């Protein structure tokens, strides 16, 4: 059934002064076939909003187009039933505030925007609330302090928890330490209480089920409906959970790689882990002969902050050394303690702990580089240290050398595992010998990922969270630290970033909060971050699918699986609604009720293309609605003027750009197309991780289209822009428009 469109035009905020609203009304009522069209001088006022509300109530209109200010503002005024189709046309920031008033070109721009808004609203469908039976149970993987805290705190918030631990008992690494340094006052005192209380609190919590010596065989499904199979003692436990906290912790950096610091050459060179074990057992002694130690050398950053080993700082080893120096002092008031460091890193309140250690008269700290550690005969060790604060190179003799070794996340790189499987398959089955060899080489490169699976997700893109850098499975968002690339799976503790146990326990709270939030949102059929609350879902018209697998490969969140034939099997609850799949699909079979290829195509079609002799170029701009679009709003707020030949279409993410739109636009006679997305690369700013990068890759195909049509490649440009660059954006538009004018009109204009 055709919609009854109510079109509401605001003439306030200079819109009315700048534009002929009368002819806008004509467009809405005429070609736009609006059921009603009203102009108000202050549409966001109570009266204006009441007009709209009344039209909706008495069924004069059942869908709304508001042509006024940016959809970013006055959201509270224009808040109708979320299921009502509503489109906002930005006549203020994007027209009246940035264009010459009462000008022909300005008017054309406004009219086009109105037509586009009407076209979009016509194509939009009412959302239908979805509700499935959702499990709100939280699966916590890993029973160290982080996992236990996540479990306990989720349970205390009223949620059922399933806690899975690989080892026979809970506690992880912290269960074995002699003491911990404090995250709370009193800062100079170590904590000697173990974690028995925490373990008991978990074991006896009525809402927590604990499985130890347990292995996750498979996790299948999607948020709110993850089906988990866990192997415990030879039998399989099955359960359904809603969200997952991965708290699998860390492992020490492989000390056998620390040969350059003498590890392995003498039993008296130990790692901080081995030292902790010794201290926890009671007496600190020299392993080679069991004698007490009179001098100890701690070598900081053993493996960390080293390109050849762990490029990052392990964050905890400075504090650990200070704590362990305390163990030595407790047992031997006369022992000499040396600490050789690059920088001592005791941020925040931890400084107090360092300060206390510095006050010890027999503890010597020096910055320096350890060049070698050698055995002295018959017993003892000597380290050569360069560039020290004690004046040039020095030699430090010690009975015991402790290497402050770093932490490696206990993670698995799902993407790498999948790539390994693909390469292995190709190495076996590819037709060409060259390809087989190439695949075999790749497989070899990825071999170290073999058998590293932790979550065993039955996901097309791989069985675990994709790792970003150095094995940490985060998604590199400063502002959204818990986000990963798998919906409703969050990490906490040392697997997320190097951190000590005090931080890790707190970190567990945040990941638990995110998990709870994701099941609550799933229960309402709503998306999680960054489109939290979005109730649209992607629909796949599979009859026309050609099994090209682009959507399954490109979804940044691994939302789409495949059957044997390669037909996509969407998992809507994993979806973040970015629309990357919609952009990827060459058959245009993926759509949302309120966002589709057809909808954008009809917006493009709604734009008037002036005849060639009018010498008015038309430039289509696709921009990311999260960053570039607000930047253009700010350009308007600041009254920056820019070329009137542009027509902007905001996209959920530039990655949702389907190249068919570009082909459409070029063949309709658009003279230039500008695509503006977020920064990509190592320090990407795209909220959907890879959207703008994927759009950039698709441009390759478009270039071919251009060639085929014999159009200049300069007519098409993709740029990266940050949200704080409104000036740059206005300049970019002007500069591009000038360039297009220089190239001349698109020859397909009059066809």
């Amino acid at each position, binding site marked *: 059934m055709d919609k009854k469109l109510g079109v509401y035009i605001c003439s306030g905020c200079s819109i009315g002064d700048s534009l002929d609203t009368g002819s806008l009304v004509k467009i809405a009522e005429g070609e736009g076939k609006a059921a009603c069209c009203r102009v108000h001088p202050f549409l966001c006022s109570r009266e204006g909003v009441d007009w709209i509300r009344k039209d909706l109530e008495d069924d004069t209109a059942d869908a709304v187009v508001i042509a006024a200010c940016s959809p970013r503002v006055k959201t509270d005024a224009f808040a109708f039933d979320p299921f009502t189709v509503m489109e906002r046309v930005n006549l203020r920031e994007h027209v009246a505030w940035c264009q010459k008033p009462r000008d022909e070109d300005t008017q054309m721009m406004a009219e086009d925007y109105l037509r586009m808004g009407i076209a979009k609203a016509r194509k939009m469908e009412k959302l239908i609330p979805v509700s499935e039976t959702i499990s709100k149970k939280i699966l916590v993987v890993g029973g160290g302090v982080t996992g236990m805290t996540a479990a306990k705190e989720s349970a205390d918030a009223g949620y059922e928890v399933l806690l899975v631990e690989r080892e026979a008992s809970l506690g992880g690494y912290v269960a074995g330490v002699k003491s911990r340094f404090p995250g709370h006052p009193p800062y100079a005192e170590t904590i000697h209480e173990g974690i028995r209380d925490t373990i008991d609190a978990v074991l006896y919590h009525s809402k927590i089920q604990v499985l130890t010596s347990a292995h996750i065989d498979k996790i299948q499904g999607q948020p709110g409906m993850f089906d988990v199979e866990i192997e415990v003692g030879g039998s399989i436990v099955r359960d359904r959970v809603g969200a997952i906290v991965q708290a699998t912790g860390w492992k020490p950096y492989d000390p056998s790689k620390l040969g350059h610091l003498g590890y392995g050459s003498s039993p008296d060179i130990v790692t901080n882990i081995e030292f902790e074990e010794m201290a926890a057992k009671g007496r600190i002694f020299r392993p080679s002969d069991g004698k007490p130690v009179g001098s100890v050398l701690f070598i900081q950053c053993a493996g960390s902050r080293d390109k050849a080993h762990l490029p990052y700082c392990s964050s905890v080893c400075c504090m650990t050394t200070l704590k362990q120096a305390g163990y030595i002092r407790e047992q031997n008031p006369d022992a000499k303690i040396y600490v050789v460091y690059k920088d001592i890193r005791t941020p925040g*309140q931890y400084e107090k702990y360092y300060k206390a250690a510095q006050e010890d008269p027999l503890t010597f700290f020096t910055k320096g580089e350890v060049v070698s550690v050698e055995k002295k005969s018959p017993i003892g060790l000597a380290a050569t240290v360069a560039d020290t604060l004690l004046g040039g190179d020095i030699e430090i003799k010690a009975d015991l050398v402790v290497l402050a070794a770093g932490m490696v996340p206990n993670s698995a790189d799902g993407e790498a595992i999948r790539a390994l499987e693909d390469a292995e398959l190709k190495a076996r089955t590819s037709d060409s010998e060259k390809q087989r060899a190439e695949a075999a080489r790749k497989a070899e490169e990825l071999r170290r990922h073999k058998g590293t699976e932790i979550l065993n997700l039955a996901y097309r893109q791989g069985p675990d969270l994709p790792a970003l850098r150095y094995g940490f499975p985060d998604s590199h968002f400063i502002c959204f630290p818990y986000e990963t690339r798998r919906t409703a799976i969050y990490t906490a503790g040392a697997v997320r970033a190097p951190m000590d146990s005090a931080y890790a326990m*707190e970190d567990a709270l945040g990941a638990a909060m995110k998990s709870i939030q994701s099941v609550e949102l799933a229960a309402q059929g709503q998306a999680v971050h960054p489109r939290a609350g979005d109730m649209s879902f992607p629909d796949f018209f599979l009859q026309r699918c050609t099994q090209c697998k682009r959507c399954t490969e490109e979804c940044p969140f691994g939302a789409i699986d495949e059957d044997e034939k390669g037909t996509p099997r969407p998992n809507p609850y994993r979806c973040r609604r970015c629309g990357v799949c919609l952009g990827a699909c060459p058959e245009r079979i993926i759509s949302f009720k309120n966002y589709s290829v057809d909808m954008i195509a009809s917006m493009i079609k709604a734009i008037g293309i002036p005849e060639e002799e009018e010498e008015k170029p038309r430039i289509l701009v696709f921009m990311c609605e999260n960053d570039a679009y607000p930047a253009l709003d700010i350009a308007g707020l600041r009254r920056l003027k820019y070329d009137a030949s542009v027509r902007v279409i905001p996209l959920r993410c530039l990655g949702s750009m389907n190249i068919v739109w570009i082909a459409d636009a070029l063949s309709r006679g658009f003279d230039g197309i500008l695509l503006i997305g977020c920064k990509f690369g190592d*320090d990407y700013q795209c909220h959907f991780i890879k959207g703008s990068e994927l759009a950039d890759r698709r441009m390759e195909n478009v270039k071919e289209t251009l060639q085929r049509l014999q159009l200049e490649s300069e007519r098409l440009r993709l740029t990266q822009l940050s949200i704080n660059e409104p000036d740059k954006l206005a300049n970019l538009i002007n500069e591009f428009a000038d360039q297009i004018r220089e190239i001349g009109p698109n020859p397909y204009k009059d066809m």
Partner: protein
Amino acid sequence: MDENAKPVLVIGGGIAGITSALEAAEAGCHVVLMEKSAFLGGRVARMYQYFPKLCPPTCGLEINYRRIKNNPRITVLTLAQLESLTGTPGDYEATIKISPRFIRNSCTLCSACVDACPSERPDEFNYGIGKTKAVYLDYAMAFPAMYAIERSACKEGCRACADACIYDAVDLTQKEEKKTVQVSAVIAATGWAPYDAARIQNLGFGSFKNVITNVVMERLAAPEGPTAGRILRPSDGKEPRSIAFVQCAGSRDENHLPYCSAVCCAASFKHANYVRAQYPDADIAIFYIDRRVPGRLEDFLQKLGEDEKTRFNKGKIAKVEEDPATGSLKVTAEDAIRGDRTEQTFDLVVLATGIVPQTDGLPPGFEPDEFRFINNRMEKPGLYAAGCVRRPGEVSAALADATGAALKAFQCAVRSARHG
């Protein structure tokens, strides 16, 4: 969550408070978010970029503001201060004083009032550099998107703004209001302020124009800032050719702040990037005790280490002196590695001033530690601190913390529903 559950009160609308509010609200909790200034965003809104990605803070703020706009469970109160808090966990009564904004939410940001306003006020958002009209908007993307008037800056009897506004958005008769809310838990996310650098006498801040602080550096680099993003010497507006960064300016010092402020190393390394982006040939020197960039921030240090014209000098600054003729600054420092003193002259000196927790206006129960941070999460039910008021740190750490605090508050809210 049960609709009977009492809301959570979040004090402080910086990035940590915003995050606590959103994470709890998106999980189903009602939240009252109160901010003492006229706009949300806190300190990060005044920053140009975040280390280590060098991305703009407004990018994340924009997403968060959108989340707030889309979430009916969050009530934002600006110009709000807590007057009292009574009760027990799960059942508090908070009285909030709301100062008049003199602008109603019918404001459309059309800016007619600003054009009409004849009075000015020091631009606090820019740390006092430059002026705004008495009717002001801190930054273009500010939320809520409506002006505010600093009435004390207005001329007696002036109502130019009210006359100019055709949307009836100016109300100069607005009075202070009181609001009482029943809440289940309170999150204090009141953040930090920069340490007063004038107290560190040997570094010359306040006496020498070309000695600036790191927070001012953020404003100089910001395109929206007082110099439209150009890093220039305050004394003469010239481009600096040599810049010194003085780490631990006040921090790790028993006479000032005995703790480490945790972010100023990375902040200075970021500022070195700002300088390099504008001045490919400038000499940069960083005077430090330890370079504290834990975790993956190490990459950021390594990258800066590759810059040929950036030097790291381990050692404390003895003094900074000004050449009154040129405004240049002579820095005398210890070189701990060479074991001697160095004297070098710079066009600009940037003090990496530390973080001081903001605890004014917090109700009793939020107990400060010996450094005045509120770090009592695990023990005290009902009252939680989050972000830099709890512990100095970078944004991602503050936000992990804020998300955790949201859970503790969420638990109280759940219980408050159960107990009626």
